[in-house]
Protein backbone atom coordinates (compact mmCIF):
# COMPACT_ATOMS: atom_id res chain seq x y z
CA UNK A 1 0.00 0.00 0.00
CA UNK A 2 3.03 2.28 -0.15
CA UNK A 3 2.05 3.45 -3.61
CA UNK A 4 -1.21 4.88 -2.23
CA UNK A 5 0.34 6.82 0.63
CA UNK A 6 -1.17 10.23 1.41
CA UNK A 7 -3.63 9.94 -1.52
CA UNK A 8 -6.88 9.67 0.44
CA UNK A 9 -8.01 13.12 -0.69
CA UNK A 10 -7.75 12.04 -4.35
CA UNK A 11 -9.95 9.02 -3.75
CA UNK A 12 -12.54 11.10 -1.92
CA UNK A 13 -12.62 13.50 -4.87
CA UNK A 14 -12.91 10.65 -7.36
CA UNK A 15 -15.75 9.15 -5.33
CA UNK A 16 -17.56 12.50 -5.39
CA UNK A 17 -17.11 12.61 -9.17
CA UNK A 18 -18.48 9.10 -9.60
CA UNK A 19 -21.52 9.84 -7.40
CA UNK A 20 -22.23 13.02 -9.36
CA UNK A 21 -21.95 11.10 -12.62
CA UNK A 22 -24.35 8.41 -11.46
CA UNK A 23 -26.83 11.06 -10.27
CA UNK A 24 -26.51 12.75 -13.66
CA UNK A 25 -27.25 9.50 -15.51
CA UNK A 26 -30.19 8.74 -13.24
CA UNK A 27 -31.67 12.22 -13.72
CA UNK A 28 -31.14 12.00 -17.44
CA UNK A 29 -32.90 8.68 -17.51
CA UNK A 30 -35.89 10.16 -15.69
CA UNK A 31 -36.10 13.44 -17.61
CA UNK A 32 -35.27 12.54 -21.22
CA UNK A 33 -38.23 10.92 -23.06
CA UNK A 34 -37.72 7.30 -24.07
CA UNK A 35 -37.93 7.97 -27.80
CA UNK A 36 -35.63 11.01 -27.80
CA UNK A 37 -32.85 10.37 -30.30
CA UNK A 38 -34.68 7.58 -32.09
CA UNK A 39 -34.37 9.35 -35.44
CA UNK A 40 -32.42 12.48 -34.48
CA UNK A 41 -32.24 15.19 -31.84
CA UNK A 42 -35.95 15.07 -31.10
CA UNK A 43 -38.66 12.87 -29.57
CA UNK A 44 -39.28 10.11 -32.10
CA UNK A 45 -42.73 9.34 -30.69
CA UNK A 46 -43.87 12.85 -31.72
CA UNK A 47 -44.01 11.66 -35.36
CA UNK A 48 -46.49 8.91 -34.54
CA UNK A 49 -48.58 11.27 -32.38
CA UNK A 50 -48.78 13.72 -35.27
CA UNK A 51 -49.76 10.99 -37.74
CA UNK A 52 -52.49 9.74 -35.38
CA UNK A 53 -54.50 12.98 -35.44
CA UNK A 54 -58.05 12.61 -36.86
CA UNK A 55 -58.90 13.83 -40.37
CA UNK A 56 -61.77 16.23 -41.18
CA UNK A 57 -61.80 15.97 -44.96
CA UNK A 58 -62.56 12.39 -46.03
CA UNK A 59 -61.03 12.76 -49.50
CA UNK A 60 -62.86 12.30 -52.80
CA UNK A 61 -62.08 8.57 -52.98
CA UNK A 62 -64.18 8.04 -49.86
CA UNK A 63 -67.10 10.01 -51.38
CA UNK A 64 -66.92 8.09 -54.65
CA UNK A 65 -67.36 4.68 -53.00
CA UNK A 66 -71.03 5.58 -52.32
CA UNK A 67 -71.77 8.44 -54.73
CA UNK A 68 -70.74 6.73 -57.96
CA UNK A 69 -73.67 8.39 -59.79
CA UNK A 70 -72.34 11.87 -58.98
CA UNK A 71 -68.88 10.81 -60.07
CA UNK A 72 -70.38 9.71 -63.39
CA UNK A 73 -72.16 13.07 -63.85
CA UNK A 74 -69.08 15.02 -62.90
CA UNK A 75 -66.66 13.09 -65.10
CA UNK A 76 -68.04 14.54 -68.35
CA UNK A 77 -68.32 18.14 -67.14
CA UNK A 78 -66.10 21.09 -66.43
CA UNK A 79 -66.03 20.26 -62.73
CA UNK A 80 -64.59 16.76 -63.28
CA UNK A 81 -61.42 17.63 -61.39
CA UNK A 82 -63.05 19.65 -58.61
CA UNK A 83 -63.10 17.40 -55.56
CA UNK A 84 -66.35 16.92 -53.63
CA UNK A 85 -65.31 18.62 -50.40
CA UNK A 86 -64.00 21.70 -52.23
CA UNK A 87 -67.68 22.77 -52.37
CA UNK A 88 -69.37 20.54 -49.79
CA UNK A 89 -66.88 21.19 -46.99
CA UNK A 90 -65.23 18.77 -44.53
CA UNK A 91 -67.33 15.58 -44.39
CA UNK A 92 -65.19 12.89 -42.77
CA UNK A 93 -67.91 12.50 -40.12
CA UNK A 94 -70.52 11.93 -42.84
CA UNK A 95 -68.22 9.35 -44.48
CA UNK A 96 -67.95 7.49 -41.17
CA UNK A 97 -71.67 7.76 -40.41
CA UNK A 98 -73.80 8.46 -43.53
CA UNK A 99 -76.84 9.26 -41.37
CA UNK A 100 -75.17 12.59 -40.54
CA UNK A 101 -76.43 14.70 -43.42
CA UNK A 102 -74.29 17.59 -44.69
CA UNK A 103 -75.80 21.07 -44.86
CA UNK A 104 -77.44 22.24 -48.08
CA UNK A 105 -75.23 24.62 -50.03
CA UNK A 106 -76.16 28.10 -51.19
CA UNK A 107 -74.99 28.22 -54.79
CA UNK A 108 -75.49 31.99 -55.04
CA UNK A 109 -72.61 32.43 -52.57
CA UNK A 110 -70.60 29.32 -53.35
CA UNK A 111 -70.22 29.70 -57.12
CA UNK A 112 -69.21 33.35 -56.89
CA UNK A 113 -66.23 32.35 -54.75
CA UNK A 114 -64.51 31.05 -57.88
CA UNK A 115 -66.52 32.54 -60.76
CA UNK A 116 -67.01 36.20 -59.77
CA UNK A 117 -65.23 38.34 -62.35
CA UNK A 118 -61.92 39.92 -61.36
CA UNK A 119 -59.10 41.27 -63.51
CA UNK A 120 -56.72 39.49 -61.12
CA UNK A 121 -57.95 36.00 -62.03
CA UNK A 122 -56.30 34.02 -64.81
CA UNK A 123 -58.35 33.23 -67.92
CA UNK A 124 -58.46 29.49 -67.06
CA UNK A 125 -61.46 30.17 -64.81
CA UNK A 126 -64.79 31.12 -66.42
CA UNK A 127 -65.86 34.43 -64.88
CA UNK A 128 -69.12 36.36 -64.77
CA UNK A 129 -70.25 39.68 -63.36
CA UNK A 130 -72.56 38.10 -60.79
CA UNK A 131 -75.02 41.05 -60.60
CA UNK A 132 -75.44 41.32 -64.37
CA UNK A 133 -75.31 37.59 -65.05
CA UNK A 134 -78.06 36.36 -62.74
CA UNK A 135 -79.40 39.41 -60.86
CA UNK A 136 -79.72 37.40 -57.65
CA UNK A 137 -81.27 34.24 -59.12
CA UNK A 138 -79.63 31.11 -57.66
CA UNK A 139 -77.01 29.65 -60.01
CA UNK A 140 -78.48 26.15 -59.91
CA UNK A 141 -81.67 27.44 -61.54
CA UNK A 142 -79.79 27.09 -64.84
CA UNK A 143 -76.48 25.35 -64.05
CA UNK A 144 -76.29 21.98 -62.34
CA UNK A 145 -73.18 22.26 -60.18
CA UNK A 146 -71.87 18.74 -60.84
CA UNK A 147 -71.86 19.37 -64.59
CA UNK A 148 -72.38 23.09 -65.02
CA UNK A 149 -72.66 23.55 -68.80
CA UNK A 150 -76.30 24.41 -69.65
CA UNK A 151 -76.35 22.05 -72.64
CA UNK A 152 -75.24 19.19 -70.39
CA UNK A 153 -78.88 18.13 -70.08
CA UNK A 154 -79.50 19.48 -66.59
CA UNK A 155 -78.64 16.22 -64.83
CA UNK A 156 -78.05 16.70 -61.09
Amino acid sequence: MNAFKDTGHLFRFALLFVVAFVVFLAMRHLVVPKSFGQYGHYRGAAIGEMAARPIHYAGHEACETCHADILQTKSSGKHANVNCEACHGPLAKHADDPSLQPAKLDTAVLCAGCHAASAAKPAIIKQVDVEQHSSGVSCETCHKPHSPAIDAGGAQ
Partner: protein
Amino acid sequence: MNMDRRHFLVMLPAAAIAWEYVLAGTPEASPNYTMSEHWWSMLIDIPKCIGCGNCVRACAAENDVPDGYFRTWVERYHVDDYNMENPEVISPDGGKQGFPAAKEDAGKYFFVPKLCNHCADSPCTQVCPVGATFITPDGVVLVDQKYCLGCAYCVQACPYGCRYIHPTKKVADKCTLCYHRITKGLTTACAENCPTGARQLVDLKNPKDPIHAFLKTHHVQVLKPQMATGAKVFYNELDGAVR
Protein backbone atom coordinates in the same frame (compact mmCIF):
# COMPACT_ATOMS: atom_id res chain seq x y z
CA MET B 1 -15.54 -10.19 -9.02
CA ASN B 2 -12.02 -8.88 -8.85
CA MET B 3 -11.76 -5.31 -10.12
CA ASP B 4 -9.55 -2.56 -8.77
CA ARG B 5 -10.54 1.11 -8.71
CA ARG B 6 -8.49 2.04 -11.75
CA HIS B 7 -10.25 -0.64 -13.79
CA PHE B 8 -13.63 0.49 -12.51
CA LEU B 9 -12.99 4.11 -13.54
CA VAL B 10 -11.87 3.01 -17.00
CA MET B 11 -15.07 1.01 -17.39
CA LEU B 12 -17.39 3.91 -16.49
CA PRO B 13 -17.47 5.67 -19.89
CA ALA B 14 -18.07 2.33 -21.60
CA ALA B 15 -20.98 1.69 -19.24
CA ALA B 16 -22.36 5.15 -20.02
CA ILE B 17 -22.26 4.44 -23.78
CA ALA B 18 -24.00 1.10 -23.24
CA TRP B 19 -26.66 2.87 -21.14
CA GLU B 20 -27.25 5.39 -23.95
CA TYR B 21 -27.91 2.50 -26.29
CA VAL B 22 -30.47 1.09 -23.87
CA LEU B 23 -32.25 4.46 -23.58
CA ALA B 24 -32.54 4.90 -27.35
CA GLY B 25 -34.72 1.82 -27.67
CA THR B 26 -35.82 0.16 -30.90
CA PRO B 27 -37.69 2.06 -33.66
CA GLU B 28 -41.47 1.75 -33.68
CA ALA B 29 -43.00 -0.67 -36.16
CA SER B 30 -45.51 0.98 -38.56
CA PRO B 31 -47.16 -1.65 -40.70
CA ASN B 32 -48.69 0.39 -43.54
CA TYR B 33 -46.34 3.31 -43.89
CA THR B 34 -42.56 3.36 -44.19
CA MET B 35 -41.01 6.76 -43.68
CA SER B 36 -37.84 5.96 -45.60
CA GLU B 37 -39.87 5.38 -48.79
CA HIS B 38 -41.08 8.99 -49.03
CA TRP B 39 -39.69 12.49 -49.41
CA TRP B 40 -42.67 14.83 -49.35
CA SER B 41 -42.98 18.25 -50.93
CA MET B 42 -45.49 20.34 -52.84
CA LEU B 43 -45.94 21.84 -56.29
CA ILE B 44 -47.67 25.21 -56.70
CA ASP B 45 -48.79 25.90 -60.24
CA ILE B 46 -49.16 29.69 -60.14
CA PRO B 47 -50.99 30.14 -63.49
CA LYS B 48 -53.73 27.86 -62.13
CA CYS B 49 -54.36 29.75 -58.88
CA ILE B 50 -57.57 31.77 -59.03
CA GLY B 51 -57.36 33.18 -55.49
CA CYS B 52 -60.58 31.55 -54.25
CA GLY B 53 -59.16 30.90 -50.76
CA ASN B 54 -60.39 27.30 -50.64
CA CYS B 55 -56.96 26.08 -49.49
CA VAL B 56 -56.82 28.57 -46.60
CA ARG B 57 -60.29 27.60 -45.39
CA ALA B 58 -59.61 23.88 -45.81
CA CYS B 59 -56.35 24.17 -43.87
CA ALA B 60 -58.08 26.01 -41.03
CA ALA B 61 -60.88 23.42 -40.87
CA GLU B 62 -58.56 20.42 -41.07
CA ASN B 63 -56.01 21.66 -38.56
CA ASP B 64 -58.04 23.89 -36.20
CA VAL B 65 -55.97 26.92 -37.12
CA PRO B 66 -57.10 29.88 -34.95
CA ASP B 67 -58.60 32.95 -36.64
CA GLY B 68 -55.99 35.47 -37.75
CA TYR B 69 -53.23 32.83 -37.93
CA PHE B 70 -52.28 30.91 -41.03
CA ARG B 71 -50.49 27.69 -41.86
CA THR B 72 -51.10 28.55 -45.49
CA TRP B 73 -52.21 31.81 -47.03
CA VAL B 74 -52.57 33.36 -50.47
CA GLU B 75 -51.00 36.64 -51.59
CA ARG B 76 -52.15 38.65 -54.59
CA TYR B 77 -49.44 40.46 -56.48
CA HIS B 78 -49.97 43.44 -58.76
CA VAL B 79 -46.91 44.42 -60.77
CA ASP B 80 -47.24 47.67 -62.69
CA ASP B 81 -45.51 47.36 -66.07
CA TYR B 82 -41.75 46.91 -65.39
CA ASN B 83 -41.86 48.00 -61.74
CA MET B 84 -41.20 44.55 -60.30
CA GLU B 85 -39.14 45.99 -57.43
CA ASN B 86 -42.32 47.46 -55.92
CA PRO B 87 -45.21 45.07 -56.38
CA GLU B 88 -48.46 45.80 -54.61
CA VAL B 89 -49.13 42.74 -52.43
CA ILE B 90 -52.39 42.12 -50.59
CA SER B 91 -53.58 39.17 -48.53
CA PRO B 92 -56.80 40.17 -46.73
CA ASP B 93 -57.32 37.68 -43.86
CA GLY B 94 -54.77 35.47 -45.60
CA GLY B 95 -57.07 35.25 -48.62
CA LYS B 96 -59.43 33.11 -46.53
CA GLN B 97 -62.54 34.75 -48.00
CA GLY B 98 -61.02 35.33 -51.43
CA PHE B 99 -59.97 38.71 -52.78
CA PRO B 100 -61.80 41.89 -53.71
CA ALA B 101 -62.42 42.15 -57.46
CA ALA B 102 -59.62 43.90 -59.30
CA LYS B 103 -60.41 46.44 -61.99
CA GLU B 104 -58.83 46.11 -65.39
CA ASP B 105 -55.82 48.42 -65.44
CA ALA B 106 -52.11 48.55 -66.20
CA GLY B 107 -49.82 45.76 -65.15
CA LYS B 108 -50.42 42.16 -64.26
CA TYR B 109 -51.98 40.28 -61.39
CA PHE B 110 -51.21 36.85 -60.04
CA PHE B 111 -51.79 34.84 -56.88
CA VAL B 112 -49.07 33.17 -54.81
CA PRO B 113 -50.17 30.55 -52.27
CA LYS B 114 -47.67 30.21 -49.46
CA LEU B 115 -46.99 27.55 -46.85
CA CYS B 116 -44.10 25.99 -45.00
CA ASN B 117 -41.44 25.04 -47.55
CA HIS B 118 -40.47 21.93 -45.56
CA CYS B 119 -36.82 22.83 -46.12
CA ALA B 120 -34.29 20.02 -46.15
CA ASP B 121 -31.77 22.25 -44.32
CA SER B 122 -34.12 24.41 -42.37
CA PRO B 123 -32.94 27.26 -40.17
CA CYS B 124 -36.00 26.77 -37.94
CA THR B 125 -34.97 23.28 -36.87
CA GLN B 126 -31.35 24.34 -36.38
CA VAL B 127 -32.15 27.11 -33.88
CA CYS B 128 -34.50 25.11 -31.64
CA PRO B 129 -32.75 24.89 -28.26
CA VAL B 130 -34.64 21.80 -27.06
CA GLY B 131 -35.15 19.63 -30.15
CA ALA B 132 -38.87 20.35 -30.36
CA THR B 133 -38.88 20.96 -34.12
CA PHE B 134 -37.28 18.68 -36.64
CA ILE B 135 -37.49 17.25 -40.12
CA THR B 136 -38.89 13.72 -40.21
CA PRO B 137 -37.16 10.96 -42.17
CA ASP B 138 -39.85 11.46 -44.86
CA GLY B 139 -39.07 15.17 -45.25
CA VAL B 140 -41.75 16.99 -43.25
CA VAL B 141 -40.82 19.74 -40.78
CA LEU B 142 -42.90 19.22 -37.64
CA VAL B 143 -43.24 20.74 -34.17
CA ASP B 144 -43.42 18.50 -31.10
CA GLN B 145 -45.94 20.61 -29.23
CA LYS B 146 -45.47 18.62 -26.01
CA TYR B 147 -41.79 19.51 -26.04
CA CYS B 148 -41.90 23.08 -27.37
CA LEU B 149 -41.17 25.85 -24.85
CA GLY B 150 -42.67 28.61 -27.00
CA CYS B 151 -39.43 30.61 -27.12
CA ALA B 152 -40.21 31.60 -30.74
CA TYR B 153 -36.59 31.32 -31.97
CA CYS B 154 -37.92 29.27 -34.87
CA VAL B 155 -40.57 31.89 -35.66
CA GLN B 156 -37.78 34.42 -36.11
CA ALA B 157 -35.52 32.00 -37.95
CA CYS B 158 -38.00 31.04 -40.70
CA PRO B 159 -37.15 33.18 -43.75
CA TYR B 160 -40.65 32.63 -45.13
CA GLY B 161 -42.74 33.71 -42.13
CA CYS B 162 -44.44 30.35 -41.96
CA ARG B 163 -44.51 29.91 -38.17
CA TYR B 164 -46.46 31.51 -35.37
CA ILE B 165 -46.94 31.06 -31.65
CA HIS B 166 -50.35 29.51 -31.08
CA PRO B 167 -52.43 32.06 -29.11
CA THR B 168 -53.80 29.57 -26.55
CA LYS B 169 -51.31 26.67 -26.60
CA LYS B 170 -48.37 29.15 -26.44
CA VAL B 171 -46.20 26.84 -28.53
CA ALA B 172 -44.88 27.08 -32.08
CA ASP B 173 -47.36 26.03 -34.76
CA LYS B 174 -47.02 25.61 -38.50
CA CYS B 175 -48.00 23.62 -41.58
CA THR B 176 -47.54 19.88 -41.01
CA LEU B 177 -48.09 19.11 -44.70
CA CYS B 178 -51.15 17.34 -43.25
CA TYR B 179 -48.87 14.64 -41.88
CA HIS B 180 -51.91 12.88 -40.39
CA ARG B 181 -53.39 12.64 -43.91
CA ILE B 182 -50.40 11.86 -46.11
CA THR B 183 -49.36 8.96 -43.85
CA LYS B 184 -52.87 7.51 -44.43
CA GLY B 185 -52.55 7.74 -48.21
CA LEU B 186 -54.61 10.93 -48.55
CA THR B 187 -53.45 14.21 -50.01
CA THR B 188 -53.21 17.42 -47.96
CA ALA B 189 -56.41 19.33 -47.12
CA CYS B 190 -55.28 22.28 -49.28
CA ALA B 191 -54.51 20.13 -52.31
CA GLU B 192 -57.70 18.08 -51.86
CA ASN B 193 -59.78 21.25 -51.91
CA CYS B 194 -58.00 23.23 -54.62
CA PRO B 195 -60.59 23.40 -57.44
CA THR B 196 -58.04 24.00 -60.22
CA GLY B 197 -55.22 21.66 -59.16
CA ALA B 198 -52.88 24.58 -58.46
CA ARG B 199 -51.59 22.75 -55.39
CA GLN B 200 -50.25 19.21 -55.69
CA LEU B 201 -48.76 17.04 -52.98
CA VAL B 202 -45.52 15.57 -54.28
CA ASP B 203 -43.50 12.55 -53.23
CA LEU B 204 -40.03 13.08 -54.66
CA LYS B 205 -38.96 9.53 -53.79
CA ASN B 206 -41.81 8.02 -55.82
CA PRO B 207 -40.48 7.52 -59.36
CA LYS B 208 -44.07 7.39 -60.66
CA ASP B 209 -45.02 10.78 -59.19
CA PRO B 210 -46.07 13.18 -62.02
CA ILE B 211 -43.71 15.79 -60.57
CA HIS B 212 -40.74 14.25 -62.38
CA ALA B 213 -42.32 14.71 -65.83
CA PHE B 214 -43.53 18.17 -64.80
CA LEU B 215 -40.04 19.30 -63.76
CA LYS B 216 -38.64 18.22 -67.13
CA THR B 217 -40.92 20.51 -69.10
CA HIS B 218 -41.57 23.50 -66.83
CA HIS B 219 -39.62 26.41 -65.39
CA VAL B 220 -39.84 25.89 -61.68
CA GLN B 221 -38.42 27.92 -58.80
CA VAL B 222 -38.35 27.79 -55.02
CA LEU B 223 -38.77 30.85 -52.79
CA LYS B 224 -35.56 32.62 -51.67
CA PRO B 225 -33.13 30.11 -53.21
CA GLN B 226 -30.26 32.37 -52.06
CA MET B 227 -31.02 31.35 -48.46
CA ALA B 228 -29.90 27.78 -49.30
CA THR B 229 -32.58 26.31 -47.04
CA GLY B 230 -33.27 23.39 -49.35
CA ALA B 231 -36.87 24.58 -49.79
CA LYS B 232 -39.09 21.85 -51.25
CA VAL B 233 -42.21 23.79 -52.30
CA PHE B 234 -41.79 24.22 -56.04
CA TYR B 235 -43.46 27.15 -57.80
CA ASN B 236 -44.23 26.89 -61.49
CA GLU B 237 -43.81 30.20 -63.37
CA LEU B 238 -42.86 32.16 -60.27
CA ASP B 239 -42.54 35.86 -61.07
CA GLY B 240 -39.35 37.72 -60.11
CA ALA B 241 -41.44 40.20 -58.11
CA VAL B 242 -42.12 37.53 -55.46
CA ARG B 243 -39.69 37.73 -52.57
